[in-house]
């Protein structure tokens, strides 16, 4: 009699749970994409893009995840992270060759080492505490020393130059963090298929870590459920950008101009692996091949004026599913092409291996940011120096494609944001501005400046600045003088003589926006990577990391320094007290004996004084301890004998 209701209840529970999970599956989704792009200097860019979405909190506040990594959602919930980006980068993005004016460079080119910024949705006084907890959590999650960003000397709170976020943004960088496979593995663990299936199976560790540049990035956006935002819930965007050099030993040697021919490559040649079908949990799994604007226009020139049959220049081993042409009315240069391949139909028996073989040589160049930024150090010696940021024109601002407002007022706005650790004591008043190699008044070109001077061992120095330069400017240089600080020996890293790294400065051009619009003719949801490309983001570039050598103390000396210094001060204390303590009688006796000696003339005074001293010392002990000396001697002999006896006994019994 009792059994049926129980069963029914269990059934109900089971049903309700599957129902709930079913609704969650509808919303949680995962998409994987890979973008391949030939670069002008015979390299290939591979950009993996994984996006996981989770719906906002259920009404009971509990989450049940299928695809979304639980660790991330718990972290977001606990620290109330609104937006966060963490990147691990090795190598430096070559802005001159690989482009500085597209979404790839401004979103995915990151400074070397670790960069972390986060926006919190907490009251302002709790932001620092949240940041500290977040850094610890992340360092645990990614096996990296992100927890060094916890100390207040390592992070700062930019107000407007980096990103608009009223006081709840924290930004920190670790330029010397070594990025290795131990950081990639936990990053891959956040993916539903890890690197077992799907596009992530391509990530062959040796080929990634021997690349010229690789940057793994994790971007997190969380919108509270009550907001009217477009994509409520948490969006986790994981990208890995690798610049690889395809080995071109297998190129067809038929052409005469073989040396000018771009290297041919395929997925298996650059990664050593093929794609064996998609990740079963992914909603879509696509590979894109992008030919950028400059390349497309060159290819069109190669062919002649007959249509845009650019495919005649090269051969693809797989036929594309779709060809997308950039909608580009504004730029005259041309529009980039995007070949789309869907991995859905490939499987283990028929792996996907995209290959590109060039038929004709082609030389093109990437689109560059309006100004190319270089940062370097000036001065010699270990006491002071100067930081210089040089902005060089890249010869394209005459036509200035993509400039939104530059044409009318003809002004070039440049945002500069740099953090300098406290031991580089920058004198911000010494800011000098050279425009076209001539010293100019700073006030004429600086529109807005915000400086937070560093405090020793408390906070780093931060400079945010908006420069307003005329369009025809050839070069602009900023210099800032600094003094080098001296650290305690514990604060030096193990290889102190290598020097200290100053994190990269971020330079952005707020009225230049990089975006690519591709027609989305089909009604189905666009790929997240393409929608990312469509977001117009200001052109951003990072400068080099500076290596500043600091003076080092002798690391082997602490004991010597302590003992010598203390001895000298003890000497001072003792001798001064002795002088003060001496009685009149004693001193007079001493003086008398001296006076007896100092009767000779002036030239031999020193000698006689010395003699007097010797005599005074030899006389005094001879007076009183003359009787006691044999006694002391006998005592000493006794002691020595006793010790010897003890030693003999010890040796006899225990030896």
């Amino acid at each position, binding site marked *: 009699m009792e059994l049926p209701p129980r069963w029914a209840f269990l059934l109900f529970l089971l049903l309700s749970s599957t129902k709930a999970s079913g609704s969650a599956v509808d919303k949680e989704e995962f998409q994987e994409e890979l973008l391949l792009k030939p670069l002008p200097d015979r390299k290939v860019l591979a950009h993996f893009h994984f996006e996981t979405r989770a719906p906002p909190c259920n009404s009971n506040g509990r989450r049940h995840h299928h695809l979304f990594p639980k660790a991330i959602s718990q972290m977001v919930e606990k620290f109330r992270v609104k937006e966060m980006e963490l990147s691990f980068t090795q190598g430096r993005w070559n802005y001159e060759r690989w482009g500085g004016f597209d979404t790839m460079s401004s979103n995915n080119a990151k400074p070397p080492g670790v960069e972390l910024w986060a926006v919190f949705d907490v009251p302002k006084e709790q932001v620092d505490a949240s940041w500290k907890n977040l850094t610890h959590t992340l360092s645990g999650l990614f096996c990296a020393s992100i927890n060094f960003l916890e100390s207040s000397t390592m992070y700062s709170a930019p107000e407007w130059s980096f990103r608009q976020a009223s006081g709840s943004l924290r930004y920190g960088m670790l330029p010397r963090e070594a990025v290795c496979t131990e950081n990639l593995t936990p990053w891959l663990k956040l993916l539903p298929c890890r690197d077992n299936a799907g596009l992530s199976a391509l990530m062959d560790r040796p080929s990634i870590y021997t690349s010229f540049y690789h940057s793994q990035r994790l971007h997190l956006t969380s919108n509270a459920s009550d907001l009217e935002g477009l994509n409520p819930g948490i969006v986790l965007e994981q990208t890995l950008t690798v610049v690889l050099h395809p080995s071109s030993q297998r190129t067809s040697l038929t052409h005469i101009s073989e040396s000018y021919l771009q290297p041919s490559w395929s997925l298996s040649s650059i990664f050593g692996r093929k794609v064996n079908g998609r990740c079963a949990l992914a909603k879509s799994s696509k590979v894109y091949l992008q030919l950028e604007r400059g390349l497309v226009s060159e290819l069109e020139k190669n062919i002649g004026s007959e249509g845009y049959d650019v495919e005649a220049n090269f051969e693809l081993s797989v036929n594309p599913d779709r060809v997308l042409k950039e909608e580009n009315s504004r730029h005259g240069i041309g529009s980039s092409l995007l070949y789309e391949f869907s991995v859905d139909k490939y499987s283990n028996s028929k792996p996907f291996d995209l290959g590109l073989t060039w038929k004709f040589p082609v030389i093109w160049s990437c689109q560059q940011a309006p100004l190319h930024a270089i940062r370097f150090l000036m001065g010699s010696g270990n006491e002071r120096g100067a930081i210089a940021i040089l902005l060089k024109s890249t010869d394209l601002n005459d036509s200035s494609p993509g400039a939104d407002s530059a044409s009318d007022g003809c002004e070039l706005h440049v945002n500069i944001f740099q953090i300098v650790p406290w031991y580089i004591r920058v004198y911000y008043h010494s800011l000098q501005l050279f425009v076209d190699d001539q010293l100019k008044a700073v006030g004429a070109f600086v529109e807005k400046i915000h400086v937070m001077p560093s405090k020793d061992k408390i906070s780093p120095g931060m400079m945010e600045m908006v420069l307003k330069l005329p369009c025809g400017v050839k070069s602009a240089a900023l210099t800032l003088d600094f003094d080098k600080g001296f650290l305690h020996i514990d604060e030096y890293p193990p290889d102190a003589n290598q020097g200290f790294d100053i994190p990269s400065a971020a330079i952005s051009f707020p009225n230049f926006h990089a975006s690519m619009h591709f027609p989305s003719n089909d009604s189905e949801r666009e790929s997240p990577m393409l929608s990312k490309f469509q977001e117009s983001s200001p052109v951003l570039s990072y400068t080099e990391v500076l290596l500043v050598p600091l003076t080092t103390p002798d690391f082997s000396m602490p004991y010597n320094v302590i003992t010598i*210094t203390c001895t000298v001060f003890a000497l*001072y*204390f003792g001798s*001064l007290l002795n002088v*003060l303590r001496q009685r009149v009688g004693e*001193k007079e006796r001493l003086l008398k004996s001296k006076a007896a000696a100092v009767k000779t003339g002036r030239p031999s005074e020193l000698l006689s004084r010395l003699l007097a001293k010797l005599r005074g010392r030899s006389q005094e002990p001879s007076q009183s301890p003359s009787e006691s000396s044999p006694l002391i001697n006998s005592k000493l002999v006794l002691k020595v004998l006793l010790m010897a006896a003890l030693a003999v006994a010890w040796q006899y019994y225990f030896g």
Partner: protein
Amino acid sequence: MYHGSPLLLSLLGPLTVKRIEGQPSHLLCSLVFVIADIISALLIRATGHTLQMAYRQSLNSLDIVDLLKSSDLLSSGDIAALVYLWNPFTIAACVGLSTSPVENLVVILALHGACKGLVPLAAFGWVMSTHLSLYPAILIIPVILLLGYGPDTPPRKLFLQKGYGKNGDNHSSDNCGQQETNQSKSEVTFSWRPVVHFLFWSSLWSAYVLVLCSISVKPHGSLWEMFQRTYGFILTMEDMSPNIGVLWYFFAEVFDFFRSFFMIVFHLNILFMILPLAIRLKHRPCFLAFIYIAISSMLKSYPSVGDSALYLGLLGLFLDELADMKFSFFLLCGYIGVSLLSPVMHNLWIWRGTGNANFYYATGMAYACLQIILVVESVSAVLNHDRKLRKLSVTKLRDGNS
């Protein structure tokens, strides 16, 4: 970056920016330092005259005039002022645009005011010097002694003995002797009036300074923050940039858990010596002030050559007392050697990178040793000088009595 007084900053800050046309911008500021140095030299000279007058007077009253004759007729004030002005250390501090000329000036102001009995001036100097660099706070003892007893004299016991000797003569001496005893008696007593005045004035000045400071730091922070940034910075020795002392290297190398212990030890080292010195040298307050300045410039957290310039200048004031000081030639050679070697070692270490931190630390160590010898020897020379005077006066008395 700047951890000094806000008042000095508001005074000197605009001067570094303002410029006379055609001249470099630091000209006005350096002019201030030159003027400060010249004024301090003038004050040293005036103080020296007062001291020498007092010295001669007291010797006269003790009837030991023959000693005076034997000593040089040079005025010690002139020599001290010249030593101060032409000291390479002073010139280096002035050329380097250090604030130490101003700090030295206020210290000398305090001493001068106390010597001359100008209570408000002494109070002003003491309060300002304490405000600027904290360490001159210990000068309150010599200043009070100066105001209470008057300038340096031989030990008071001598006057008493002398007085008894005179009285024991059954008024056989003439009027002059009577006057002298009266005078010596009046000198011996400690007069409280100027001391109370001094305390009153110094509280007034310090209130004034605090009000000015709080006004000037109001837009940036509180007064407490100012104390933390100035005095706290001095006491905790946060900055470990190399200077002429040894403590920067000590605290850059010492283990972290010993840091606070040694910080307390080194600061107490200054305070420990105050009382014994004050007991032993209470009849010579000016010399006591000199010793205090020398000790604090040796043990202070951020010493500079400007501090040495001050005590070397003051050293000239005690020419008569320190006439038979030991090791004076050795000290002179040592000072010259260290001041030549120290820049060389600094250059080798910091600029060329061929040297080591220990090279520079060794010169700092040698310099500290020299200062120690100077302090110890000058104290013992003054004590010996007093003994000599005592002996002379005793023999004089015996001769007079017999």
